[in-house]
């Protein structure tokens, strides 16, 4: 009838071929292993290096174990504001000179602040390795920011907040979800923080934060690329070795109480033109044995146009502009998000009911072998496709070293995904994606004319 129907026969013949090659994938295509070496300096700085001489390029990252969860009440957004200050001058490097010295070398530089950690990185031609180590060591050892530059930079950060949160459609949705999903744990607020709290921050806060958290015993130096590892360790010791060890670093002690019943909130947003929903479920932390089956579940739900949520909500029902399920694994209590944006005229509560029933099916019945293999192939492919550059490798190596607390997991994580069974997927969906653990937040366009 329709031309599309003529394809189904071909598909039946295609499918076994796909399955056959899919099975072959696991044997033939293995992501290349990194040769990882680790050392710790006397002052507590951990250094993790992986030599890759295929291009004359190095990526260097300094991970500090401090993020938005470490912020004091009334000082939300401070870890990120502080990150900006790290470019405003240190003992031997004037304001913005850091950027310039990297750039003159042909390098790229940036930083980002998360819930758990703050990461500074440079990618550069390999013969500039010592300069980059010197730059990072200088701002770990000392910070030299003027009151005037502090005030200007705070305005820059407030513009960033307007750009990311206050103005775009759905910009404040994440904040609303976190505030409702967490009762106590300091993931209750996002790294960008509140504008009022940013205004409360002072230069004295900046200095205190540096002396507490920006110490070698709270940092991990990651190096990936074109160097000889022994020489890289020697240069790192030369520049970082003289920085005194700091006091033991305070850690978050809050415990998130177990959620006993479903929570619901809704938000009127004059900028959001379509209804949307997020359903958040509490999960264990990153690296938990159940996290791998949960990632496989997320892949089955969301990865590609054959995924369950896309197929049902976007393709078949045409109810949603987008529908996804994904896990956000953090160092502390983590979350699984199911979310969707409704097409015009579609009922958002009906869409959420569909998402929940798709989760329900996965809890009721094991996923097929075909879907399981598909998810494993997608994850394997992402290990290869998404770790092409030195920087992408260092990102994951840093995550292994800091979040999973063992850099060697860079090479072994893939094995944990490979050993997940259909029964594991069913078990974790049944255990974690339950109504009692859910926080649902609806976002609705403000009524015409607004208030």
């Amino acid at each position: 009838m329709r031309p599309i129907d003529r394809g189904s026969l071909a598909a039946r013949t295609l499918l076994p071929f796909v399955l056959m090659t899919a099975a072959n994938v696991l044997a033939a295509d293995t992501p290349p292993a990194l040769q990882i070496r680790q050392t710790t300096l006397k002052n507590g700085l951990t250094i993790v290096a992986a030599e890759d001489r295929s291009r004359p390029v190095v990526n260097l990252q300094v991970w500090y174990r401090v993020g938005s969860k470490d912020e004091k009440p009334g000082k939300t957004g401070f870890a990120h504001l502080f990150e900006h200050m790290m470019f405003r001058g240190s003992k031997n490097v004037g304001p913005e000179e850091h950027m310039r010295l990297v750039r003159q070398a042909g390098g790229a530089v940036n930083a980002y602040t998360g819930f758990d950690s703050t990461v500074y990185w440079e990618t550069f031609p390999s013969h500039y390795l010592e300069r980059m180590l010197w730059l990072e060591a200088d701002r770990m050892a000392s910070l030299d920011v003027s009151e005037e530059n502090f005030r200007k930079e705070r305005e820059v950060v407030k513009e960033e907040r307007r750009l990311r949160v206050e103005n775009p459609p759905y910009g404040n949705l994440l904040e609303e979800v976190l505030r409702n999903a967490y009762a106590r744990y300091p993931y209750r607020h996002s790294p960008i923080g509140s504008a009022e709290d940013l205004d409360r921050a002072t230069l004295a806060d900046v200095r205190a934060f540096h002396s507490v958290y920006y110490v070698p015993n709270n940092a991990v130096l990651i190096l990936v690329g074109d160097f000889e590892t022994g020489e890289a360790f020697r240069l790192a010791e030369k520049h970082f070795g003289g920085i005194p060890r700091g006091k033991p670093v305070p850690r978050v002690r809050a415990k998130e109480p177990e959620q006993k019943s479903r929570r619901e909130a809704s938000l009127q947003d004059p900028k959001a033109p379509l209804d949307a929903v997020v359903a958040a479920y509490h999960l264990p932390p990153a690296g938990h044995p159940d996290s791998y089956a949960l990632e496989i579940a997320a892949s089955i739900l969301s990865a590609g146009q054959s995924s369950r949520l896309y197929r049902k909500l976007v393709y078949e029902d045409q109810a949603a502009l987008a529908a996804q399920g994904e896990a956000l694994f953090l160092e502390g209590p983590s979350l699984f998000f199911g979310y969707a944006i409704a097409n015009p005229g579609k009922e958002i509560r009906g869409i959420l009911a569909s998402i929940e029933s798709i989760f329900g099916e996965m809890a009721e019945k094991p996923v097929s072998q075909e879907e399981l293999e598909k998810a494993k192939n997608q994850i394997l492919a992402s290990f290869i496709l998404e770790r092409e550059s030195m920087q992408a490798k260092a990102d994951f190596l840093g995550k292994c070293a800091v979040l999973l607390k063992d850099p060697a997991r860079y090479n072994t994580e893939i094995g944990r995904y490979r050993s997940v069974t259909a029964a594991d997927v069913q078990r974790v969906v049944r255990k974690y994606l339950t109504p009692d653990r859910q926080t649902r937040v609806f976002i609705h366009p403000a009524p015409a004319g607004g208030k």
Partner: protein
Amino acid sequence: MIPAAALLLIAMTMNAQTAPKAAPPPPAPARPYEFPRAVSRTLPNGLRVSVIEDRRLPLVAASLQVLAGHAYAPPQKAGLATLAAALLREGTKTRSSQQIARAVDGAGGQLNATAGNDVITVSMAFMLSNADLGFELMADIVRNPVFAAEEVARQQQQILSSLTVQYASAQYLAGAAAARAILGSHPYAYPGDGTPDTIGALQREDLASFYEQYFAPNRAWLVIAGSLGAEEAFARAEKWFGGWRKQGPADEPLPPAPEPQPRVLVVDMPTENQTHIAVGHAGIPRNHPDYIALQLGNQIFGGSFNSRLNMKLRANEGLTYGATSYFEPSRFAGIFEASTFTRTEKTAEAIRMLVDLLKEYRDNPATDAEFDEARAYLSGSFAIATETASSVAARVLAAEVNGLGTDYWPRYRERLDKLTRADVEAAVRRFLEPGKLAITAVGNAKEFAGALESYGPVRVIPVAELDLTAPDLVKRKP
């Protein structure tokens, strides 16, 4: 006798007072780097194929570009190329949309099609053991799409919904409106995603005939990169695309960009507390002889964190989180634009600074130090910019599609080395016309529109009345 401890104290105090800054350690000798070698051949059907062998990963990627981009759709059908590209994956003569999706996802592969100003790009990336499946699927969606009415309606709805969200974004609208303010009614001026009206009006027949007319091997380039030797790769190209026997129209040039004219376009979004600003005029095509000199100059003006523009607006004034300038060159014309965003009450001030900086830049395009730094950056970053197989492939393809010549990238740094500060200054002065800028601002208009009259005639259009394809940008009354 002064005790040693006191001497030390004096030394330390002096140190603190004079605070001599240490210099950064010097670089080691640079490791040599050559742009990876590409081998190119033209198949008998006119398809030009380039291959880059890179065995670092068990991966094969390919991209095909066809001269069927936005510029080939008339303004009243804006979005046609985007919708056509979206439909390629949604069904062929032998595979349904979901069959394609299952085949791609099952192998952990990637298969995508997107539209740009000049070309539709179809790309795939598969693990080595599934590379043949990747080529088969890619060739199928390139050669046999059916544009089934049901799938067209579905993709139309998806694009309409995403436009509904985009139209709530001042950032999106500033980019789209600036293209019209700068390029007027040039084929590159219209939004590639179309508008709710143009997307809604497209028919299955529009897509099928657009595809029939423009998708042909003599209008296409293919690049293959990854764990295949040149002969293996050419054999795949021949096998999957050699039988593609169609002859499309010859590659006719598009008209040049319009002459710059001063004008101010304000899109009013009263809900915003931040204004998105884009200032510029027509740029240059990608194959323009001044391209490298202007790129280098742009590094100095607004192409980097330490550029004059960002240092002034962000670092020194705290007006914005970012201010950048860039060239968007297409095959026959381009855009030069400087853009930023700032809180509503600083809008006029930020625009004033930006325009003043452009004037000052034309008078004084580069100091020796700025020139040296920008050149060192472009040269030094080349190995990083071409680090992955996919980034090399993208550059090889750009050289082919824009007719830059096969030695363009291998000799790129050599050309940079030969550039002088005088070359850059001359190119900037030939090009830049800071008295004839098109200024676009999207935000809460009543707070700043009145202050922009000195730059040219000001038009304020409420966002609900904006029509990005209408000659005067305003929706016709029903």
